[in-house]
């Protein structure tokens, strides 16, 4: 846990903001690029997607420019060029330049990683220049889409359109769509919901090209919006969808086709019905509100009044998503950390109040105050628990974010390697503390890449083994009590235990004559410097091995297990705590010291006499309902005086996932809330200690790192 908090070097607030925003933009770009790849394969591009991509690249260019990252800004500029070509229709969906988007985004990501070092930035300059050159060449060669003639639309409307909006307008005209001007007035302080409603309805049958605000009839209180809507449907069809008392629709350009929109069984004779609609409604339009721009002699003019016989429309998804934008707040995770620390300190104070209440209660003279204080303490306790749960809840995010990232990685690997692999994802809704989720991304990525590169065989080999040609990687998360288990399972060739062993012998990790169980041998994969595949591929080989995966997961208080069946596949399970910040702990005494053990890891406690402890090859065991439970004496672990040989001892049975161990202690003291704080200084790396915590009036105690103690116990047991 200490490692987790010491990783970020001191950086200015502005730079941190910059890095985190660029990361967000990159995340958005990657997700949108994945969609773009799908849509390119399907042949039809959603115009808004290209525009969204363009906007991300544009923001990136601006930000990088402001912070003086010229390489990044230049690269973003070229990204923007490609995307501008795409959204403006100058580049076709098939243009080869689009293949350079992803490498450019990844290069930006790697530039960001190197942002701290000017030297590393300079080193990347050549890489940037090469990619830029390729983009320029590709853009030059890209097939240009035909331009269309300028439309016959009122200049007044065109003035506030951006170049892109102009392009969408021209494109709609070229496709023979109807262009409608929808106008409506709203109260200025609450316009968003009504406008979102109107926009959402218009989007059901068309594209909203622009949204232009103008002062309403009472300028201080009202605001009027003009929406330029392109659609295959006529004004009549549009009017049945729009439900706003002051909305009016005017056709500013008649569509070429009389075809009805797909979802409306309404009239097909556009002009006639629009005229009829206009005649029927123009009176209500004039009464309903200001519409200075609607020329009333226009036969296409149709206004909308709420139709009574129309069934109530379900709120559209569009509207929901707009609402969720305005109801979400971005919070710096460090602020949540601070909040969590504060809650932790309150929790500790609460403990002190309880102690005072107990003292007061013990004296007859003050017992009355003690009772009162006790009651107050109970109320405070309840509220504090709610507060604590609330703060924890805010920090929880679904694993889906990481899973989606992995799914994009697999998609790319699939494309680059031509290997046929299916990724099955389950349990993306499982939630974990944000920090844990972030720290998990790298280890999970590595495990998945390993499965893709090494575990899954080429199609021919699979077919020969009687398996389907397509390999499967299953990614699954499930909650188990206070832990989340994430499994990455493949149906590949499995791990060759003998090969692992001989390689470990060759590396000098084990003696040639060592006796190892199967599990122990598989466990060697987590040893630094051992990789079973001798070939190093571009995707998995570099740097991070399974040892780093284990190290990362252990730093989060978790455990990694590996199980593999030759020929059938490998499953790697990560067991992680749901949160890191506040834990319930069991305090135990050893000699004159106290330790805290996270309660989530405690399975049971028992008292045993010395005769119950069995010894085998220097290790101690307890027969726990027929199973041998490996024991560890905490006084021996931490160099404390041993208790009398005949003393009864307490055993705390701890477990994580399927692993168990028994910790021998002198006393069980009680259950407490503990806020884990990292330990800095010389004791930081003491194995078996996760951090320190304060316990009310009783000073600081050390928190045991159960994961480390169990693993160590398990290793000794296997060795025994």
């Amino acid at each position, binding site marked *: 846990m200490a490692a987790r908090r010491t990783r970020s070097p001191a950086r200015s607030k*502005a730079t941190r*903001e*910059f890095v985190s*925003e660029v990361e967000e933009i990159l995340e958005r770009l990657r997700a949108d690029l994945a969609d773009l790849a799908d849509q390119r394969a399907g042949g039809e591009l959603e115009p808004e997607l290209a525009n969204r991509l363009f*906007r991300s690249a*544009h*923001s990136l*260019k*601006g*930000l990088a*420019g*402001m912070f*003086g990252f010229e390489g990044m*800004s230049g690269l973003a500029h070229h990204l*923007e060029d490609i995307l501008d070509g795409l959204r403006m229709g100058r580049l076709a969906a098939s243009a080869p330049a689009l293949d350079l988007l992803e490498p450019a985004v990844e290069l930006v990501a790697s530039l960001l990683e190197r942002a701290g070092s000017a030297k590393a930035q300079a080193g990347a300059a050549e890489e940037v220049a090469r990619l830029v050159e390729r983009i320029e060449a590709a853009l030059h060669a890209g097939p240009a889409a035909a331009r269309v003639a300028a439309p016959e639309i009122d200049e007044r409307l065109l*003035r*506030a*359109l*951006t*170049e892109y*909006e102009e392009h969408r307008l021209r494109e709609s005209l070229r496709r023979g769509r109807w262009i409608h001007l929808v106008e409506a007035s709203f109260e*200025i*302080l609450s*316009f*968003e919901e009504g406008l979102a409603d109107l926009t959402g309805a218009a989007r059901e049958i068309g594209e909203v090209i*622009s*949204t*232009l*605000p*103008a*002062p309403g009839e009472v*300028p*201080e*209180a009202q*605001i009027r919006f003009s929406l330029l809507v392109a659609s295959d449907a006529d004004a009549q069809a549009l009017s049945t969808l729009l439900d706003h008392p002051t909305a009016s629709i005017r056709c500013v350009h008649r569509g070429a086709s009389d075809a009805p929109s797909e979802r409306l069984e309404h009239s097909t004779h556009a002009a006639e019905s629009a005229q009829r609609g206009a005649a029927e409604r123009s009176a209500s339009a004039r009464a309903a509100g200001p519409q200075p721009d609607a020329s009333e002699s226009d036969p296409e003019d149709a206004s909308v009044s709420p139709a009574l016989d129309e069934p109530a429309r379900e709120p559209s998804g569009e509207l929901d998503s707009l609402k969720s934008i305005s109801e979400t707040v*971005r919070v710096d995770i460090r602020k949540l950390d601070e909040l969590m620390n504060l809650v932790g300190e309150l929790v500790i104070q609460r403990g002190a109040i309880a102690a005072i209440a107990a003292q007061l209660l013990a004296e007859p003279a003050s017992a009355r105050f003690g009772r009162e204080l006790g009651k107050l303490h109970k109320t405070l306790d309840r509220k504090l628990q709610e507060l604590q749960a609330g703060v924890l809840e805010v920090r929880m995010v679904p694993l889906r974010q990481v899973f989606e990232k992995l799914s994009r990685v697999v998609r790319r690997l699939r494309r680059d390697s031509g290997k046929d692999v299916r990724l099955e994802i389950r349990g993306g809704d499982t939630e974990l503390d944000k920090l844990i989720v972030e720290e998990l991304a790298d280890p999970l990525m590595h495990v998945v890449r390993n499965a893709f590169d090494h575990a899954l065989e080429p199609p021919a080999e699979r077919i020969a083994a009687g398996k389907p040609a397509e390999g499967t990687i299953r990614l699954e998360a499930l909650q188990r009590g206070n832990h989340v288990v994430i499994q990455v399972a493949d149906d590949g060739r499995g791990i060759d235990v003998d090969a692992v062993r001989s390689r470990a012998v060759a590396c000098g990790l084990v003696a040639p004559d060592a006796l190892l169980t199967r599990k122990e041998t598989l466990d060697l994969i987590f040893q630094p410097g051992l990789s079973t595949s001798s070939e190093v591929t571009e995707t998995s080989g570099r740097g991070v091995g399974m040892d780093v995966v284990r190290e990362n997961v252990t730093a989060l208080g978790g455990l990694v297990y590996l199980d593999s069946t030759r020929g059938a596949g490998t499953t790697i399970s990560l067991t992680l705590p749901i949160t890191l910040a506040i834990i319930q702990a069991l305090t135990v005494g050893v000699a004159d010291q106290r330790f805290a053990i996270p309660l989530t890891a405690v399975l049971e406690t028992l008292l045993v006499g010395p005769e119950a402890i069995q010894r085998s090859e220097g290790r101690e065991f307890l027969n726990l309902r027929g199973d041998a439970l490996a024991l560890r004496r905490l006084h021996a672990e931490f160099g404390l005086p041993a208790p009398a040989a005949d003393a009864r001892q307490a055993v705390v049975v701890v477990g994580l996932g399927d692993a168990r161990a028994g910790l021998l202690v002198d006393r069980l003291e009680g259950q407490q809330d503990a806020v884990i704080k990292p330990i800095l200084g010389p004791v930081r790396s003491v194995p078996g200690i996760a951090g320190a915590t304060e316990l009310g009036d009783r000073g600081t105690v050390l928190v045991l790192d159960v994961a480390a103690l169990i693993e160590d116990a398990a290793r000794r047991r296997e060795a025994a």
Partner: protein
Amino acid sequence: MHHILIVEDSPTMRSLVVSALEELGAPVRITEAASGFEALRELPREAYDLIVTDINMPDINGLELVSFVKSNAAYRAIPLLIISTEGSERDRLKGLELGADAYLVKPFEPEVLRRTARDLLAKAQEE
């Protein structure tokens, strides 16, 4: 006291602009809007002396905001400065046609922003 409305969807960029303008050399109060819609809601709440807006934003774009401000008698006199990443020359021209008082291309030096803001504020006071 000058009251400045900053409309910019990028939080990083927004805080850069805010911190640049906080050192204007004259007392300032700054209101931040993260989108065009937010700006539309902020405008009637207070009297502003300067509006600084980006162009590329979700919901309504900066040009649409300029059009709104400059077509509204209540806000027309407020000087308006567009800050936008170097991009479409046409968009820039349009911003000025719609009545924006100045246009700054990102990246810019904080001092250039301050100078432009001071000029706009002084000009508005003269008028």
